[in-house]
Structures are given as C-alpha cells and as structure tokens.
C-alpha cells in the first residue's frame, strides 16, 4: 500500500494543509493586538476564540473552584420529624461515606435498613411508596434539584465578572466546578460564589419608565464630563463564504447587532434612552451597546436622579431574535422595578416544573407551580389583587429571570407561571425559585487560583525551555546522522505542527504540564527515527545496497516502534482518563505527539528516502 510516490506526496500535503488550516485561527488570535480585537465584531471574535487553542487557567491566570453541596445537611433539613436515631444515622452515614469514599445515600440506605429505621415516617410527603428504597430515591431527586438550583445561582452571579467564557458545570452527583479565566480579584469571586442567594418577587413599574428615562437624558446632557459619542465606525458586513464553513458547524445565521448601532443623531437628543428600544419581551439594549449603557447607568449623577422607589435591573441573560432568514440580533432586556419586594425567597415553597394537566386552559404546555408560606400567601393575595395585568419580576441576585403578567388575584398562595417555550425554560425557572428555599449549603472544597503574572511567566519560561531543547535536539540529530538527521528534523518539525493542529482541532486546553508534554515529545519523537536509522546502519554494515538497507530498516523497525509506542500510549491514556485539568493536558499532548511521530518519523521520512532513490540508485547514504 502507498507504494506510489504521488499518493504519498498527496497524503502528506493534505495533512500539512489540514494542519495549517487548523492552526491559522490560533496564530491569528494570539498575534492580534488588543486594539484590533476591540475593533472586531463581537461574534467574529467569539468565533475566532472558539477555534484557537485555549490557554489553561495555569497559563492565562484565573480561578478554579470545586464546590460541594452538603447532602447530609439537606437530608436533615428535609425531615419532617427529627428524632435522635434518624439524626445519628445520617451522621454515621456521612462519616462512613467519607471514610470509605462511597456515596452518602448508599450508606444511608444500608444503615437505615440495618437499624430498621422506616424512613417514610420522617419523610412523609416525599414518596408515594413506603419502602426505604423509594424514599431514598425521592431524596436523591431532591438532591439533584438542589444542585441544579445551586448551578443556576452561580451561573447567574458569575455574569458579574465579565469573564469571557466562564465554565460552570456539574461534577459527579453533588459537586460543581467553576472556572473563571483572567480573574484579578479572587477574594471578590470567592465571596460572590459562596454568598447566600437572594430571591424576590417585585413589581415592574412600566408607568414610571418614561419619566425616569427623560430625567436621565436631561442629567447627562447637562453633565460637564459627558460627551455624546460619535457614530460608531461602520462594520463591514460580509456574508459567510460557504467554502469557509465546510469544516465548521453549520450555522447559517449571523449576528448583525453591530450593524445596528444607535446613530449619534439620536444620542444627541437622548443620550441614554436612545440606546433603549422596544424588543420582543419588553425594552432592551443591543448586546454591543450593553456595556456602554451599564456604565452610564452606574454614574453617580444618573443614580441620584432615579426615583427612590425603584431601580433598574437587567435581565439574567441575552436574548436572540432573528430579523430575517440569515441574520439575528442579540439584546438584553432592562426593567424598572419597585425597590420594596413583595415576596422574598423564604416565602416560596415547593416550585415544580410540570406539564399542565389535561382539561385546563394550558393543557399540554410547560408550567411552573409553586406554593407559599401562610405569611407569603397573605401578602401575595393582596399584591396580586391590587396589580392585575401588571408584570411581576422574578429577581434572583439582582437579575430578572422572568416578568410574567398577573392575570388575577391569587388567594392561598398556589400559583402557576406559564409562557415557557420548552421544558428547559420551565426547569430553569423552577431552579431559580428553589434558590429561595435555601437548598443544601455549598462549600468550596478545592481552589486553585493562579495570578495572571505567574501565568505569563510560565508561558515565557515554557517557551524558552522548549526552544532550547528543540534547537539542541535538531543540532544533535544533524551532527549524529548528517543528511538523514536533516530528514528526522523535518519530521520532528512536522510532528510539532501536527500536535498543535490536533490540540486546536479537538478544542483542547494548553496547560503548563501540556507544554511540558510538548517538550518531552520533542525528545521522544525522534526515537522512531533513531530506531530506523540505527537499523539502516546495521543493514549497511551487512553489505546491503542503500535501497535494500533502507527497505529492511523501515520494515523491521516499524514493529518495534509500534510496540514501544503503544506502551507509552497506555500510560498516557490512563492519565488522560483519570487525571484532571492540567494532568489531562499533559497526557493529551504526549499522546498526540506519540501518535503523530509514527506518521512523521515513519511515513514522511520514508517518502523522502523513496524520492531520493526513485530515479537513480543511491551509491552512498548520508547517515
């Protein structure tokens, strides 16, 4: 197979081209000046960043936090009766699960059964079946809800930092990973992550909006330090080249928010309200103007003019709306709400996302049902009765998640919220509402914060170590193997290019151990060529012709290379599988390096040898 030189040449060029294609965005992103990045359209920059190799937190600086929800506390809280033997069983199960590194619920079930505790007695309304197993699984689903709620709370808060791409995910059954890149105030982040959530229901005061906006405009126009911005530079709008998208996800819509910036003409008259427009769901601001408006709103003179009874709050996230077949805009809604909340989180009980039962008006749609404490129900009934057809904002940590209309007076606290597009939306809201019930307490159990300066130092020294190692290895190979060493060096360079392309291709994150893996790869990747060259030398010693020696050398050496590399790969795969974060980065670069070396050191160098011996038989080999 692959005897034909043309076929070999074609395969190699294809690989090189594909590698260059994958590396280009990384090169582009990291060589671009901040100035140019600022000029670039929001969505294009995001796309470019997505295609470039990410730097790990240890290289760009940032914070990694592992949080754990205290499940035993949750289980204790959920019990309706709390006799000593139940509390003791919970405590023992907790201790056992720590000692034996097992799941708390497994231990809890075993201990309850052993001690003949009938759990249904203490968790009366959780489960319809009466055996311990079903109570445990009901408790487990309470745990899952608590974690989802904690996730929602943290996601919402992290927004505060303006971190470009925070990573927040569930880990195992009761843990949450939070990764914040480029954070410079770790103390603030820690506090924010661990703060107790605040949930409230408050009235949206649409009738006060216009007058408030007018007075803000007036304040800004008379302020000495305020300059009406000039027209934003027009952004070139290029339709996406179809060819360009062959390798990427099919996404034929484009964010054109940048094209719709508010003209200076309007801002001259309405420096604040000019940015606000009527958008689906209410009044909002385009994504690319969001920061400007937020800063204006935070000005002291602006804050002092806002009526005391209310405040502006942002929606929890950006919305998208298509404006035609291929374009969409991104925006964020803003509300003017009453300062004194009607209902606080502690009054909300038992929120559930469910499909509305058959026979009702909303039959088949997703809704969220909730109940209230007696005190909450009383207040809620009065409030809803007085504000029919107005909006009530569901506010978590100062962000509005939803602002449904009040359809009528709600006596008794049983409330239904409708208007969800799908199950996920409804579940998100029920998670937000659960935040008020104070779910399981969440604690930081692992934290790694790297300062940006240490990160850039690591990049610098890593790059230096790599360069020095690389140059010495290249020089040594030429010194020891002469012309053939040059071939090995070409293979080595190609190997590094391919590894970087693979990292970019699989969206891997480059960590400091990852750089170490690359450096190690330089040393180990030449091994395949060393094995081949030594073998060719032996064959030449036996008096074979150059061509025969090369053929025999490659043939025998390949099996050795394969066997030897597979064992290193086994160790690297186990590391990639069990290891976390930085270690994974090391394992991935090392595996990629080894796999690529089999292609570059065997296939590529062989092809060059074949090219050399194709037309005229070689008398002498430089080896």
């Amino acid at each position: 197979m692959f005897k034909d030189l043309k076929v070999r040449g074609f395969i190699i060029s294809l690989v090189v081209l594909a590698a260059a294609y994958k590396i280009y965005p990384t090169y582009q992103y990291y060589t671009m000046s901040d100035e140019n990045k600022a000029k670039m359209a929001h969505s294009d920059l995001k796309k470019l960043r997505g295609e470039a190799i990410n730097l790990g937190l240890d290289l760009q600086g940032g914070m990694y936090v592992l949080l754990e929800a205290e499940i035993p506390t949750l289980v204790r809280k959920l019990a309706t009766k709390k006799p000593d033997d139940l509390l003791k069983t919970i405590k023992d199960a907790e201790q056992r699960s720590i000692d034996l590194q097992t799941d708390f619920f497994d231990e809890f079930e075993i201990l309850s059964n052993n001690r003949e505790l009938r759990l249904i007695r203490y968790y009366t309304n959780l489960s319809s079946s009466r055996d311990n197993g079903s109570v445990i699984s009901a408790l487990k689903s309470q745990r899952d809800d608590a974690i989802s709620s904690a996730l929602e709370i943290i996601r919402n808060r992290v927004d505060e930092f303006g971190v470009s791409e925070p990573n927040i995910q569930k880990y195992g059954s009761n843990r949450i990973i939070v990764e914040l890149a480029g954070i410079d105030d770790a103390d603030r982040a820690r506090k924010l992550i661990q703060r107790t959530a605040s949930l409230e229901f408050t009235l949206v005061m649409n009738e006060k909006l216009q007058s408030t906006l007018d007075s803000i405009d007036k304040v800004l126009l008379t302020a000495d330090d305020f300059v009406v911005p000039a027209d934003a530079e027009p952004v070139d709008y290029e339709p996406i080249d179809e060819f360009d998208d062959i390798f990427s996800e099919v996404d034929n819509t484009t964010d054109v928010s940048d094209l719709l910036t508010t003209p200076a003409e309007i801002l001259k008259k309405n420096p604040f309200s000019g940015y606000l427009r009527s958008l689906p769901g209410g009044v909002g601001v385009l994504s690319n103007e969001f920061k400007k408006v937020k800063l204006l709103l935070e000005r002291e003179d602006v804050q002092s003019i806002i009526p005391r009874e209310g405040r502006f709050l942002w929606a929890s996230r950006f919305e998208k709306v298509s404006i035609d077949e291929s374009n969409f805009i991104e925006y964020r809604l803003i509300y003017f709400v009453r300062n004194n909340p009607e209902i606080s989180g502690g009054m909300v009980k038992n929120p559930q996302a469910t499909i509305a039962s058959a026979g009702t008006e909303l039959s088949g749609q997703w809704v969220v049902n909730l109940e209230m404490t007696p005190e909450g129900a009383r207040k809620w009934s009065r409030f809803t009765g007085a504000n029919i057809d107005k909006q009530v904002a569901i506010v978590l940590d100062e962000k509005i998640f939803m602002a449904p209309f009040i359809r009528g007076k709600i006596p008794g606290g049983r409330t239904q919220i409708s208007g969800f597009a799908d199950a996920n939306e409804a579940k998100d809201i029920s998670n937000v509402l659960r935040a008020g019930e104070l779910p399981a307490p969440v604690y930081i159990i692992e934290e790694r914060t790297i300062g940006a300066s240490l990160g850039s130092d690591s990049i610098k020294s890593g790059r230096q170590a790599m360069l020095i190692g690389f140059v010495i290895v290249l020089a040594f190979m030429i010194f020891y193997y002469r012309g053939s060493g040059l071939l090995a060096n070409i293979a080595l360079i190609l190997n590094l290019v391919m590894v970087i392309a693979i990292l970019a291709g699989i969206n891997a994150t480059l960590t400091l151990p990852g750089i170490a893996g690359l450096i190690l790869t330089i040393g180990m990747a030449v091994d395949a060529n060393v094995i081949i060259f030594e073998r060719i030398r032996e064959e030449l010693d036996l008096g074979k012709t150059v061509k025969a020696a090369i053929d025999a050398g490659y043939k025998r050496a390949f099996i050795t290379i394969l066997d030897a590399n597979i064992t290193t790969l086994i160790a690297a795969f186990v590391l990639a599988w069990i290891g976390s974060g930085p270690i994974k980065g090391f394992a991935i670069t090392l595996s990629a390096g080894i796999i690529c070396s089999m292609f570059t050191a065997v296939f590529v160098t062989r092809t060059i040898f074949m090219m050399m011996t194709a037309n005229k038989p070689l008398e002498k080999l430089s080896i």
Partner: protein
Amino acid sequence: MRLFNHTNIDFVGKSEIAKFLSMALIIAGFASLVMKGGPDLSIDFTGGTIAQLQFEKAVEVSELRTLLASTGFESSEIITFGSPNEILIKTQFSGANTELEFNLRSAIKSEFQVRRVESVGPKIGKELQSDALSAILLSLLLILMYISFRFDRFYAYGSVVALIHDVLITLGVFSLLNIEIDLTIVAAFLTIVGYSLNDTIVVFDRIRENMVKHAREPLDTIVNISLNSTLGRTIVTSLTTLVVVLSLFLFGGEVIKNFAFALIVGVIVGTYSSIYVASPVMMYFEKKVVAKK
C-alpha cells in the same frame, strides 16, 4: 558519526553487580521513606493551602516567620520559591480563602503580589490519593497485559519488575532529597513507566528477533548481542530525551521544576533498567521454567 559501533560489552555478566547497585539504591530510598513514615505528600494529597507571594525585593524568611507566627499562621511552613523575592506559605485548609489574603496583608507590612493560591480540602486530598494510586496500578496492569499478549509472560515479568524498580528508585530519590510528591509528580511517574518500557521493548524486540536468527546460541549470548546492537539507539534516544527534560528543568520555571526533575531521574534510571534489570529478570524466569522441564 557513530559512538557505539560494534560494541561487545558483556552486559549479562555484569548483571550481578547491577543487582547490588539496584538493591542498594532501593534500600536507601526505602530506609529514608520508613524513617519519615512515608513519602512527603503535597497538599494535593494531604489537604491544605499554599500561597505563593512575590515581593518587590528579597525577603528574609526568618523575619517573615516571626511576623506570621503571631497572627494565626503558627503552624505554617514558609520557604523561598525560586527567586529570593518569592515565598511559598503552606498552611492548613480553611474552606474559603477569603480571609487568607486579608490576614496576610495585615500581618506582612511590605507590598506583595499574590501569585498563586491552591487549596485542597482533606476529602478531595483522599480522593486524589486513591485516583493517583489507581492510575498507576491500572496502567501497570494494562501494560503487563499488552506485553504478555505481544511477547510472552517472561518478558512481561521482566518489564514490570523493571518498572517497579524505576518508580521505587525515583520515589526513594525524592524522599532522600525531601521533594514533595504532588499530582504532577504522579503524572511524571506514569511517564517514566511509559518511557522506561519503550526502552525495554526495543531491547526485547531485538532479543525475540535474535532468538530465531541465532537459535543455536545460549540465551546469555543472544541477550548480549541484542543489548549491544540496540545500545546506539538506547543511548541516543536517552540523550535527546535527557536534553529536553534538562532544558525543562533549567529554563521551564519553578512551578514545573520538580516534575522535570522526576523525569530526569526517570530517564536515567529507565535507561539503566532496560539494560540491566529487564533482560536479566526475563532470563531468570525463562531459565527457571526451562530447568524445571
């Protein structure tokens, strides 16, 4: 250029000396481990907090110690880290580190920058410990299986004994030099395992080939021929690998230094063991079984 042309070294004959050398190294490391009551484990495994601070000028560690001792950092370890401007404070795990930076700032009067804070709860430490252990055991097991499949069990015994030998010696060296074992060191151990095996297999492969070619020769001679003919490759690859890990050790920065050091020890020990440990052990088992027959 060729350094090891047609060498004819009697490696097998010298394996008795090697046996003593290896035993001595392992026992020395073991003694040090026993005296300390186990390896120095980092906060990754024991739980705890480290903070790396950078000052504008060199700091006197002893001064800092007295400053911090009076403010709740009595049991902390304080050492310089890399440059004299940087120090590392190792203290207990305290949950959130919200107060840590504040307390440090109020205790230490001079300006500093917090370069790094790492904090691991005791529960996570335990988990990371068992993860690391299972990673090492699992890869050893898989490698054993692969070698038994590709060669035969005698080769597998030889290579695994060599691997355990390498990791034990590296562990001992770390203990003797008081270097802490953290997560990255475990990754280095596994890399050593992979690397040392790579070396061993090249030799084994040649032995297997020569068993057919020189079927009439005794095993000792075959092994010697094989070791000699692969010697050039063994040395060259070890050299190139050593060059890059040395470069990593010298220029790669303080954070990765111990990792690079583990690799340096591993490459040297791994090269040695593929010549002097793996093959003799393989021969030992092979001869034992042949003798029984």
